[in-house]
């Protein structure tokens, strides 16, 4: 009885880690662009990034289910490439989670870039640092709080994901059955003890992760030049 829940927990952690990693790679340039662009399209992109905050996860999940299924170009391409469908697979879960947690990575990063990195970047440029050099040696350390906040919130938010995962991934043990879905199933089958165990674990984990953010932000106050 314990084994499937352990695998659900491991799958959840793996999903949260991979999602956070992908978000860090995709979200950083996106946040930088939003923080520095003068394009008139900026509010449109900001809105798109913020949408997952207000949309019911089932809406995102529904559209993804339609967009990723094997009859679409993307889903079909993936199927011929890997022999797997995007829907009801771990890759599909990652895509869904990345979209769902996007604002939790991009917004803190964008805010940090705008408030903490602008002047130091100008200084670095005046000292002769090329943009990419200045980004890694100055903008990243100056925005470290934004990075920590973004990473931790994305991670924690993905841990607690339910609707998107259920729509895109279903409930396949060891493939797409994450903790939140396991809890739902345990409750449905009146297995309250198991549900208690998993819920308590998720609660404790989320508490610790968020506590870390707040303690970190207190210990390392950002000095704005």
């Amino acid at each position, binding site marked *: 009885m314990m084994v499937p829940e352990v695998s659900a927990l491991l799958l959840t952690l793996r999903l949260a880690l991979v999602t956070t990693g992908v978000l860090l790679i995709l979200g950083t340039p996106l946040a930088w662009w939003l923080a520095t662009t003068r394009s008139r399209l900026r509010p449109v992109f900001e809105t798109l990034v913020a949408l997952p905050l207000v949309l019911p996860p089932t809406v995102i999940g529904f559209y993804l289910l339609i967009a990723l299924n094997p009859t679409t170009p993307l889903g079909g391409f993936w199927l011929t490439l890997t022999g797997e469908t995007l829907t009801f697979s771990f890759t599909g879960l990652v895509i869904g989670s990345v979209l769902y947690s996007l604002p939790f990575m991009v917004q803190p990063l964008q805010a940090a870039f705008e408030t903490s990195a602008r002047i*130091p970047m*100008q*200084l670095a*440029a005046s*000292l*002769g640092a090329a*943009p990419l*050099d200045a980004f890694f040696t100055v903008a990243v350390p*100056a925005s470290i709080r934004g990075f920590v906040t973004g990473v931790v919130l994305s991670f924690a938010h993905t841990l607690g994901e339910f609707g998107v995962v259920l729509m895109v991934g279903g409930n396949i043990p060891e493939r797409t059955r994450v903790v939140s879905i396991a809890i739902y199933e345990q409750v449905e089958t009146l297995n309250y003890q198991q549900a208690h165990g998993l819920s308590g674990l998720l609660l404790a984990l989320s508490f610790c992760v968020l506590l870390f953010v707040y303690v970190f932000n207190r210990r390392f106050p950002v000095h704005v*030049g």
Partner: protein
Amino acid sequence: MSVSVLQLDLDTVYAGFSLRVQAEIPLQGVTAIFGPSGSGKSTLLRLIAGLERPQRGRIMAGPDVWVDAGQSLFRKPHRRSVGIVMQGAPLLNHLSVRGNLTYAAQRQGDRPAAYPFSRVVESLDLEPLLARRPPSLSGGERQRVALAQAILTRPGLLLLDEPLSALDRARKAEILPYLQDLSSRFDLPILLVSHDVDEVVRLADRVMVLKAGSMVDFGPVTETLNRHGFDRDTMDREGAILSGIARKIDRELDLMEVEIGADTLFLPREEGRQIGDVVPILIRASDVALALQPPEGLSIRNALRGRVASIRRLPNSAFAEVGVDLGVLVLPVRITRAAVEALSLRAGQNIWALVKTTTLAG
């Protein structure tokens, strides 16, 4: 080598106000950009540094085109041979002072070091600060670190944005000596933005006067400021700058004697002043008293002989402005209208203008 020139030809709208400047600034010594707050001084400096882009205009440093908006040409700031100390002297807060300095020194490609690290550190007295973090530095210390950082990039031009404005009097006195001979010590042309006439008189060789985004005058400090007035807020004419010659320097009393025409003023000694130097002296209209006879039994020792050239009673005010012709120029003096009556001042009368020593240093 002939002195090259920074050519500005800008006509651009920036954040709601327009900036119009056409000038050729010799890349030698210290040039001040002077004007009241909001006149566009900082924007001009940031355009030269490449931190802002003009919509129209050109900036050329010697033969190098930095900006030509018509040709969509824009050289990025890290490719311009220019150092800037921004307002408030921001530093890289995640690095130590030493880290800040090496950051600058290490990003200059293969160009040979113009000044060894140790010499820059030494000349700005930064040795005791090297291990510190920027947030723990005082305003004056930040300025010195930022100066060193900019110098270490071996710029062809150094831009300073209000280097003294955020500092209190004591800190100003601490940082002034470093600024005073920076240009000659490092053979570095400096462009200095300031709204403080004292700073301009102390530091600059020539001055560009900006008002509401337009350049209204450009030339040698004394003549240009005497022409345009220099009160820090209104830019109204509120005093004059005299040029004296240092004749004697008394290290014991910390005074120097400065000759102006037939008169001698006793001023606080300035570090680095030599006998024979031309000393610009700023006298504010409100810091002068008038006497009909040469002063006796007064603590004020500085008296300049002159003639009353004009008397203008300021409407709705207790004051009048008396123009005292000193021969070299007419010094505006602000006294009460009551005093004008009491002394029965009239044009053509001989008069003594009394100036307190402490007010001369600014």
